[in-house]
Every structure is written in C-alpha cells, then in structure tokens.
C-alpha cells in the first residue's frame, strides 16, 4: 500500500527546475529518497545543482523523488524518457534492470546508472569507490574503540554495502586485531526511527562506535545522545551530532555529472563504466573532528588518503581470506575491480553470514 502511494506521489512531484529553451538538453534524475535526506539523495541533488551551475542555459534538469526500486521505477524512468529527456541518471543500485528495460525502448536517450554493472550502448554505469573512505574510518575506529565493539547499520545485502563492511573491517582489524563488528541489516535505505533503534540496540550491546550505510542521520544522533562516537554517511553530518561525529564519507557527484552532461551537449557521450575514488575527487572525507580525534590519528588518516590516491595503499591488499578460510587475494596482490564489483562474501574475522 505504502509503495503504491509513494509511487502515485512520485508522479505528482516531478519537478522541472528551470525554464526550457529550444536547444537545451533535458537531463532527468531518478531519486530513491527525498533530496532533503541529508544523505545519499541529498548528495545526488547537490551534484545536479553543481551541474546546472556549471553548464548554465545549455541544459535543464528534472528529478523524480521517492521512486521505489521495483516495477514502478520503470514507469518513472519511462516517463522521463518519453518526455524528451536526453540524459537520465538513475541513482540507486536496484534500478538496474528497470534502467536497461527502458533504455532498450529508447535507444536515442542516454542513461547513466549509479552503482550498477550492466551496460548497453546507451547505458553507462558509474560509481564511487566509497570503500576507500571505509578504509579510513575503519582505521580510525580500530584505534578509537575502547570496547573493541563496533556497531554497523546496513541497508540491503548488495556488493557495494558488503564491500564497505569488508574494507572497514580489514582496516580496523589491521590496527586492532581484537576488534569485533556487530552488524544489523535494516532492509531499508531510509527509516529514521528504525535506524535510531538499530543504533541504540548496538550501543546497548556494547558498541562504542556507530557506523552506518543507511541514509538518514538518525544513527549519528542516537550516538550523540548515548555519548558514543559515530561516522556520518554520504554527506557531512557534523551539524546534527557535533560531539559524536568523527568524520563522514562524502559522495561528490557534481564534476562527473557536469562532464557527462557536457558530453551530451557536445555529442561526444559514449557508454562506459566509471569508478572513481579519492584520486578523482568522487569520494572525500569530511573535516576530521579535532575535538574527538587525536592529532596524530588525523595525520595518519590524511596520509592514508594520500596513499590511496597515489596507489601505494589499497583497501583490499592480500593476503585476504574469506570466512571459510580460503585465500581470495594472494599476498602482494590487491583485489581486482571484478572481484570488488561482485563481492558478496565477508572476509575472515567478521561474525555472522551474509544474508541471502
């Protein structure tokens, strides 16, 4: 019922952002949540605004918010494609097949699907190497935890999320072999109440650091209230939890969106797979909280950022074992992008199983 209503609603909330000129390229966005979530969708919307400012009158943009990740997404995407949009960004993993379905019907429209891995001549995929940020916060968490228990709130068991958990754990365990992570799957990207419940449950079970891979800032707030530490998600969440927030992993989509829109304007757009991290500025760390973190740890974190940028450090450096004890990345090697893109297993040391 709620899904239906959200869908009906989403068609009411198609928002055309700027006036249309004849030679303008129309660019559409499909959002999973509201731009006001101060997380995932918020950062995509910031990217859209950046793109508008960068390209000015040569483009106009439209977005549809709160589009569920099911067959309803097809209708939303088709609506944009049928209404003359030249380029459509679908900004959630589970829009993958829906994007392809519409793309096959509209071969002249260009599509950009975030965090997916299926491409067509008119469908590109793009994603950020968020896991590089997870390596940094894992390192910090490993050093900052006193109870050696870290609470980790997650949405859905998809490779992006599991990769994040693994990167986080590997970095944390490297500096603190005793560290344990407790994981709660919420099966929703966005439900502030449930996210707060999960955070409180983890804190109650002894976690003194809360990590999230969900979209609201409720977990960070819950951490603040309980007097424990937290990392923010997707955007800088320091304002909501100044005494808990150590740093956030920020998604910076603007320059990529502007480049792709420019390519459509110039007629040079081609289907490709883009996966960028610290090096290209698609992932950034929010300012480290100097009130909470010791200065030398902040320096370490910054050095790690630089090392990841110039390739001397990788989030998945061998030897890495899976939970069954099998060697998955050999010593002296790093996990290749293929393995990372389809990562559906926990590394050795993480308790529990990946939900099916």
């Amino acid at each position: 019922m709620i899904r239906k209503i959200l869908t009906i609603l989403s068609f009411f909330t198609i928002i055309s952002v700027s006036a249309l000129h004849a030679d303008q390229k129309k660019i559409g966005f499909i959002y999973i949540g509201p731009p006001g979530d101060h997380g995932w969708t918020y950062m995509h919307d910031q990217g859209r605004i950046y793109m508008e400012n960068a390209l000015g009158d040569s483009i106009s943009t439209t977005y549809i918010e709160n589009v569920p990740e099911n067959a309803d997404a097809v209708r939303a995407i088709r609506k944009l494609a049928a209404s003359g949009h030249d380029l459509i960004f679908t900004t959630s993993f589970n829009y993958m097949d829906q994007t392809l379905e519409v793309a096959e019907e509209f071969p002249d429209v260009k599509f950009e699907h975030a965090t997916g891995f299926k491409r067509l001549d008119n469908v590109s995929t793009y994603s950020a190497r968020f896991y590089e940020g997870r390596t940094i916060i894992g390192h910090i968490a490993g050093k900052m935890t006193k109870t050696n228990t870290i609470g980790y709130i997650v949405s859905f068991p998809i490779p992006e999320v599991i990769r994040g958990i693994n990167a986080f754990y590997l970095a944390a365990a490297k500096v603190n072999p005793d560290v344990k992570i407790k994981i709660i799957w919420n099966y929703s990207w966005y439900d502030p109440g449930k996210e707060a419940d999960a955070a409180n449950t983890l804190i109650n079970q002894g976690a003194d650091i809360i990590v999230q891979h969900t979209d609201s800032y409720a977990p960070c707030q819950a951490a603040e209230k309980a007097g424990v530490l937290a990392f923010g998600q997707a955007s800088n969440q320091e304002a909501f939890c100044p005494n808990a927030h150590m740093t956030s992993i920020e998604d910076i989509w603007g320059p990529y969106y502007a480049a792709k829109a420019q390519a459509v304007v110039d007629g040079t757009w081609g289907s490709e797979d883009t996966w960028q991290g610290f090096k290209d500025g698609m992932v950034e760390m929010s300012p480290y909280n100097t009130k909470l973190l010791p200065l030398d740890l902040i320096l370490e974190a910054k050095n790690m950022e630089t090392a990841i940028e110039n390739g001397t450090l990788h989030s998945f450096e061998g030897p890495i074992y899976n939970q069954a004890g099998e060697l998955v990345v050999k010593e002296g090697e790093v996990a290749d992008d293929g393995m990372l893109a389809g990562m559906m297993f926990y590394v050795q040391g993480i308790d529990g199983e990946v939900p099916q």
Partner: protein
Amino acid sequence: MNIDLLVGILNIVLISTTPLVFAGIGELVTEKSGVLNLGLEGLMLVGAVTGFITLVLTGNYFYSLFFSIISGVILSGIFAFLVLNLMTNQIATGLALTIFGIGLSAMLGKKFSGTPIEGLNPYYFIVISFLLVFMVSYFLSKTKSGLIVRAVGENHNSAYSLGYNVIKTRYMTIIFGGVMSSLAGFYISICYAPMWQEGMTAGRGWIALALVVFATWKPWRLLVGAYIFGGVAIMQMNLQAIGVKLPGQFFNMMPYLATIIVLVFISSNKLRLKLSAPASLNITFEKNQ
C-alpha cells in the same frame, strides 16, 4: 544475558513502540464509531512537521505540541466534514488524506529539513500512552458516552432513531483519532528521532491501522499487539547484532502478515466477526433513510 542488556532492550522497545500505540488507539476509537480513517500516515507526517517547525521557530516544546495537535484537529476535521456531511467514500477520502499529508508535510518542511534540534525526553509520552489505553478502555466499556460511540458504530440507524447524534459523535471520534495521529507524529519528530525529513514516519501509520484489526478493536489487545510488533522488531535487531542469522525481510512484513492471519481467523466464523468488527464500519450514514 545480563540485566543491563535487558533493561536496555526494554527501553528501546518502549521508545519505538509508543507512536504505534498513539496512532492505533486513536484509530481504534474512530473505527469503534463506524468510520475507517486511512489517513493516519498523512496525519502523522503533518503532525510531525508542524511540531518540528514550531519548535524550530519558537524553541518551545509546549507550542510545538499544541500546534501539532491543532494540525491533527484541522486535517481530521476536514476528513470528518467530507465523509460525514458530504458523504464521500471513507476509503478514498482516507487515502487522499494520506497522499495529501505526505505532500503537504514535504512542502512545509522543505526549508526546515536538516535543522538540528534538541530532542524531548520520550518517557513522559510513554507513560501517557499507557494511560491513554487505560482511559480509552474505560471510556468505551464503562461510560455512557462510550456506549453511545459503540452504538453508533454498531448500527447508526438504530442509534439515530434512539435520539443519538450520529454525526456529532463521529466528528468527536474522528477528531480524537486525528489528534492521536498527530501526537504520534510529534513524538516521532521531536522525541524518537529528533529531526524532520520527508516521509520520516516510514509506514508506521499503516502498521497502526493493521494493529487495530489485529487487536480486534479492543484497546488492551491493541497495546499488547503494538508491543508484540515493536518487541519482535527490536529482538530481531538484537539477535542480528549477536550474530544469529535471520530473514530480516520476513520480520519487515510480519505486522501485515499477522494482521491477515487475524482477519482470516475472525472472518472464518460469522459470530466471531460480528462480535469483533463494528458493524457499521465504513458504511456511510444517511440521515433521511
């Protein structure tokens, strides 16, 4: 398992279940008088956003609560006018109210989304929620007005011919339900997760609606049902955190599944169905019959 852990779990269950109790008990009274209000989700969201905006602007919790309740009175008053005076279809009007509430709250809250606020202690409201269930139970079973509400819900024509004012009674129960929903919304945005974000009630209005059926329209069962749903949700989080593998999707659908099972159970027997659901539920009352 030590005692601190259990107290902690209980604490989280209490905090997370209270909005369901508020919205559910309000809807229970509304339905007891024979009106089905599907607008809970919308009412909750508008209550949440009005409370939040008032708090940001005035910094006063009392004003915030007051305006949140006023929003519930106004919106449910409009709903009552539509279904009672203009005799519109209750289901369609309720759905419209939800859709309207989602949109209105998003529009009102746009500028305020992401403003940090200081949350209010939830414990007062937890206590109030228990008192309310007690009061509603007493009201419906032991007072004359409560009997009138039930009479109107069972057979509005008989109640009318006995001289009871069906329309006025239903106005009262609808507005009571609206106020309870907005209170649930206020609790969510001010106490539970102190913030405003679009759609932040995340379907709790629908769970509250399901609860009323699950409770077979009995206040104490509603309380028990709410705590079963809330308790199961928090227990599965605890088990997950301990490392027990659980089908999380299953727990997400549990409230709805449980409601369907109860529905099947009570409708398998005509008598049981008669004893449970208010007979005039969702039937439009026309005075000049």
